[in-house]
């Protein structure tokens, strides 16, 4: 058995060597960026295949109903990316803003980038958004889609052939196969680290603060902890990634990004004010989607995090009222009514405030006050799509 284990380890070692060098070995610390080729065309069969799939996926994104097409949002995202990675590099990228409330952005081999609304909601400055876009662009520049695909194919081929060999010789090869399988996930995590570090180089050259990428992960960890606490669960941040994790943990990323940033020029303005102005038309819509995710703690953290930078404006107060009304405990309904009134005092103009305030009061047993607010809504919006229902509630 010991002999077999040694053999298995030797075999795995040789196969891992055949699978190619670790991606981390190629990344040099410093501020020099990789050589960039304009109008790059795929060169090999594998690369052409990966691009072909990406082209097809891009058609789906371009025509998706989830794409946010209005008011030049995608043009603004392009400006941020160009500021982060440079005008020449960003010229070959198509950006699609998608209405998906998770924290994510991704990039495909052919230069297609998608940015989710959840990332736009959580970012507090252009620098934070740029940190994530720069990371995704680094995946593209380092051609991770292609190398990742090739590594997975080599590894799964090796696992299959070792399985055949094991069956022919009646030997247990599961430990060898398991080592190779583990390598697939480790390779993916190393790609993420490489993209983080190259993304940091873009940030350092762009004029955005170099410390921001680390802050992004700290903020995300704080949201996850708040979310867990809101669900009566134990907050849990790990330093070491698990066996099947595709990314390093948030904690590890925030630490190595902060360490690397300390060795770089500090950078300048995070452009928080400009970012808030650009997101203002979308903020109510993104907040409304977040509130419907039934994540009280996480959403409250996002609101507080945004308010810490911009102050409690009418949109944030209204969203906070909605959050409390949605949870719906008697104490929440009381607090919600208070926030609705504060939002009105802060200048919230929408008639839906009266409706939602009225519904909160009505649900909390304050029938007269509730009807008064609902009537105010009906006066302002007599033809609203829910006017008949609200009238029926008032009449009862």
């Amino acid at each position, binding site marked *: 058995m010991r002999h077999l284990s040694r053999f298995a380890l030797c075999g795995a070692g040789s196969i891992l060597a055949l699978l190619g060098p670790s991606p981390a070995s190629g990344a040099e610390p410093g501020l020099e960026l990789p050589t960039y080729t304009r109008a790059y065309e795929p060169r090999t069969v594998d690369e052409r295949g990966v691009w072909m799939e990406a082209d097809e996926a891009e058609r789906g994104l371009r025509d998706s*109903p*989830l794409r946010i097409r209005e008011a030049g949002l995608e043009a603004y995202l392009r400006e941020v990316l160009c500021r982060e990675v440079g005008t020449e590099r960003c010229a070959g990228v198509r950006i699609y803003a998608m209405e998906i409330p998770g924290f994510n952005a991704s990039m495909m081999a052919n230069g297609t980038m998608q940015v989710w609304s959840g990332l736009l909601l959580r970012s507090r400055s252009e620098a934070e958004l740029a940190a994530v876009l720069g990371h995704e662009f680094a995946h593209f520049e380092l051609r991770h889609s292609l190398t990742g695909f090739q590594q997975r194919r080599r590894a799964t081929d090796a696992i299959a052939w070792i399985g055949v060999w094991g069956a022919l010789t009646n030997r247990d090869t599961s430990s060898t196969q398991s080592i190779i399988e583990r390598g697939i996930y480790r390779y993916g995590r190393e790609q993420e680290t490489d993209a983080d570090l190259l993304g940091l180089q873009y940030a350092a050259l762009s004029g955005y603060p170099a410390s921001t990428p680390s802050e992004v992960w700290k903020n995300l960890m704080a949201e996850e902890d708040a979310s867990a606490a809101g*669900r009566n*669960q134990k907050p849990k941040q790990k330093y070491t990634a698990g066996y099947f994790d595709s990314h390093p943990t948030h904690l590890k990323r925030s630490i190595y990004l902060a360490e690397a940033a300390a060795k770089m020029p500090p950078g300048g303005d995070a452009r928080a004010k400009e970012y808030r102005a650009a997101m203002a038309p979308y903020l109510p819509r993104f907040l409304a989607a977040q509130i*419907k995710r039934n994540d009280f703690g996480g959403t409250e953290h996002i609101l507080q995090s945004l308010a810490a930078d911009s102050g409690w404006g009418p949109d944030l107060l209204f969203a906070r009222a909605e959050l409390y009304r949605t949870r*719906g405990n008697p104490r929440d309904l009381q607090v919600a009514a208070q926030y609705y009134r504060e939002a009105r005092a802060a200048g919230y103009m929408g008639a839906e405030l009266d409706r939602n305030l009225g*519904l909160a009061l009505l*649900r909390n047993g304050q029938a007269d006050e509730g009807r008064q607010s609902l009537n105010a809504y009906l006066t302002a919006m007599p033809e609203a799509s829910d006017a008949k229902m609200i009238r*029926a*509630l008032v009449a009862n």
Partner: protein
Amino acid sequence: MTRLLIGLSMGLAAMSPAAANSLVSAGPRPNIAGSSFSAAPVDEWNRLSRKDGKNVEIWTRDGDQLNKVTFFGGIPSGKPLVREIDKKRQPLPKVAADMLITDIPVMLESTYRIQYAVSQMDIDSQEPATLGGHKAIRFTYRFAREDDGVRRKGEAIGAFVGGKLYLVTYEAPALYFFDKDVEKYRKLAATLAL
């Protein structure tokens, strides 16, 4: 060996009806979704064997991706509309005894957004109605899921009866299918009783 295979096939064939979809023929149909919901469809439907929850039953004509009627039969206070996929990370909103009737579409929307990765959903019209003689809400909505991006439309009627939520929804792709079968759903909904 051949006999063994034949035997196994016959065994599987004999077992399959228990887990299969079934025909809902025209006529009275009591105890829908394991509840006091009853209806009297005037034509045939198919009942899916799939159970999205203890008190959930799905009917369709051509498959649930093309037209789907879902009965939520008496969801009690403290329970979600459908069975939660991930209670820890994706808990669903729960029915509460003090909910207003206008909270029904809100709850459906939140459930869809969390459970089915619906990232766009709008409640269009809301109006008073009756369901089995009880005060109810009739509402229409539109949504698109992240996975297929198909624009779907929905129409529903719901009520709280004895502290429990009773809701029936009809959903189909906005393109062609919704209009094709919406009248069949409305005829079915007109026969609902509690």
